[in-house]
């Protein structure tokens, strides 16, 4: 026990004596959480639109006004020619072109069928899709408005009323902040522990340690504990920022989320230790840790929903610890779920934690 505590003490001394470590541990995550949470926004704003108006009628003017009045669109030009618009698209100055054809108002007023034409720059396909969607909504509204003005009864279709539970204003931050918090905690824990044993290999101190009677488990626990503590502190700081800066609601139980975080950290630290035992240099460890974190992050459901992934990829996400944790943190924070709703996730994380830590201990050889 005294040995373990002394290793813990030694690790803390080493971490805090490293001049770069303090900013890495405490400033970087805060900046990341703040910046990423503001930037990882899926709503598309300021779509640059160009209108090709071949109708040049009061009606087309009204439509143009309605588009430019929208928050989502910035009107950057109106012209009779299509060429002018497409040239701007090529220069990457325009995202969408709305074409109002000749006889638009005549056809509309005489209740004949009429069409509008939308051209979108689909280099960024999701942005293009969202832009078209917004534009269609505006046009639909416009149609209803104009029809009502004329006293024409628009055929009643099915009216859909939506209500967004757990995030009524659809504030993307409520959705993103807990997820980004998970990423930060994961990255810090994985990289710190991944670099650690391999660092002792690299500077040669492992040679001296290996000839001592220290037991494997004492060594690994002594190495895990400091990072577990750092991970929990990191999580707490991030959680406070989420709650008090981003005003993310916290409906669930705080002890529950800490219990889950605790087990989750043991899993991630174990993964780091495992990486550390199979590599020889910090560079190798860094690349491996980076590889895993990128794959886990992109397949976590944070940036793209798991449900929209291909079938095989969806199956792969069952192996992704970040996915389980993001699900849990969202459930507990936003939905106030209790243990029974997260017990599957909890079980998966506990079992993986046991498995990976056993593997790390097995793999850490005191002999060459």
């Amino acid at each position, binding site marked *: 026990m005294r*040995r373990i505590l002394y290793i813990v003490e*030694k690790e803390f*001394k080493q971490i805090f004596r490293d001049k770069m470590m303090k900013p890495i541990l405490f400033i970087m995550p805060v900046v990341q959480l703040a910046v990423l949470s503001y930037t990882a926004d899926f709503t598309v704003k300021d779509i640059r639109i160009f209108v090709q108006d071949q109708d040049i009628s009061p009606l087309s003017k009204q439509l143009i006004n309605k588009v430019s009045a929208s928050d989502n669109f910035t009107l950057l030009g109106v012209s009779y020619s299509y060429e002018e618009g497409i040239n701007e698209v090529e220069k990457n100055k325009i995202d969408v072109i709305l074409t109002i054809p000749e006889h638009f108002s005549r056809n509309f007023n005489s209740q004949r069928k009429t069409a509008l034409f939308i051209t979108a720059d689909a280099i960024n396909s999701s942005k293009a899709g969202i832009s078209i969607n917004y534009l269609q909504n505006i046009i639909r509204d416009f149609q209803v408005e104009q029809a009502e003005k004329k006293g024409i009864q628009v055929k009643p279709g099915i009216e859909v009323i939506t209500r967004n539970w757990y995030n009524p204003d659809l504030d993307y931050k409520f959705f993103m902040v807990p997820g980004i918090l998970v990423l930060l905690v994961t990255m810090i824990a994985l990289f710190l522990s991944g670099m650690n044993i391999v660092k002792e290999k690299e500077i040669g*101190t492992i040679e001296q340690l290996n*000839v*001592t*009677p*220290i037991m494997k488990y004492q060594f690994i626990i002594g190495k895990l504990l400091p990072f577990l503590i750092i991970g929990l502190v990191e999580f707490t700081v991030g959680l406070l920022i989420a709650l008090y800066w981003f005003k993310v609601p916290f409906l669930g139980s705080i002890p529950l989320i800490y219990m889950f975080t605790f087990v989750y950290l043991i899993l991630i630290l174990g993964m780091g230790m495992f990486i550390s035992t199979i590599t020889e240099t910090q560079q190798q460890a860094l690349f491996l840790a980076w590889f895993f974190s990128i794959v886990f992050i992109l397949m976590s459901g944070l940036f793209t929903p798991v449900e929209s992934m291909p079938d095989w990829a969806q199956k792969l996400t069952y192996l992704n610890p970040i996915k389980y944790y993001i699900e849990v943190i969202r459930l507990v924070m936003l939905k106030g779920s209790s243990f029974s709703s997260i017990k599957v996730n909890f079980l998966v994380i506990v079992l993986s934690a046991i498995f990976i830590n056993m593997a790390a201990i097995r793999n850490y050889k005191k*002999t060459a």
Partner: protein
Amino acid sequence: MIKVENITKNYGDVKALKGVSFEVKKGQLYGLIGPDGSGKTSLFRILTSLLMPSSGKATLSDYDTVKDYKKIRKIVGYMPERFSLYMDLTVEENLNFFATVFNTTVEENYHLIEYIYKMLEPFKHRRAGALSGGMKQKLALSCALIHKPEVLLLDEPTTGVDPVSRKEFWEMLKMLQETGLTTLVSTPFMDDAELCDEVALIQDGNILKIDTPANIAASYPHKLWKVVTENNYNTLKALDKLDGKISAFSFGHSVHLATEDRVPEDSIKKHLVDNNIKIENIEPIKASIEDVFMELMR
């Protein structure tokens, strides 16, 4: 105390040790002398149980390095070739750390390291990384001694250390020997060898000779001359054609020339003068271990 029996170690096709045997008696200061790449470090790593031999057997205090590795680690103090303490911990913290890892305290065994540690004391709050080479080495030795080992294994402790610190270091080893400690030390420096009780000369994974330094030096089979001239290179070239020459090596500012017994001083002088070499001094000398080593390697 240390028994090495027919140890071999292969790394793939590379044979690092080709059947090494020797024995170190309790309380001896034993030197393993050999150039870089001769297998010294592999042997040390086998003795410290960090490496498994390909064949053969080694015991320390009757504990087998493979089977009883746990016991070995309690009785061995090891100083690896590379400085391997924590550069970002202070002198004191390093010492405390290794004492704790060995389940002891600095106070308990302070008497063992007192002499060495006194020299380090003024720097005890300095980080190990900021110490000079000689100080680092004293710290490493203190850390290797802090758990009161029965056997001290020092892998090239004097490599990269200035001559004054090297001398000091050997004085420390002599003092430690008086406490009854058994020490095995490897070194590529022949002058270190003369300070050991017994030495084993090792090259290419083979032991060439085992004896006391004095006996080894006395075993030199030829007549040896020290020739001082202005230029060793020209002298060596000229000596190539000397009748009765066995070998000639550059030794600092002089040349050590081995000849058959029949060759008199005058004929060497004459040969050199004939070859336009200006002689500053020529005298017969006693062979050192280095001469023996050069002879064995020839």
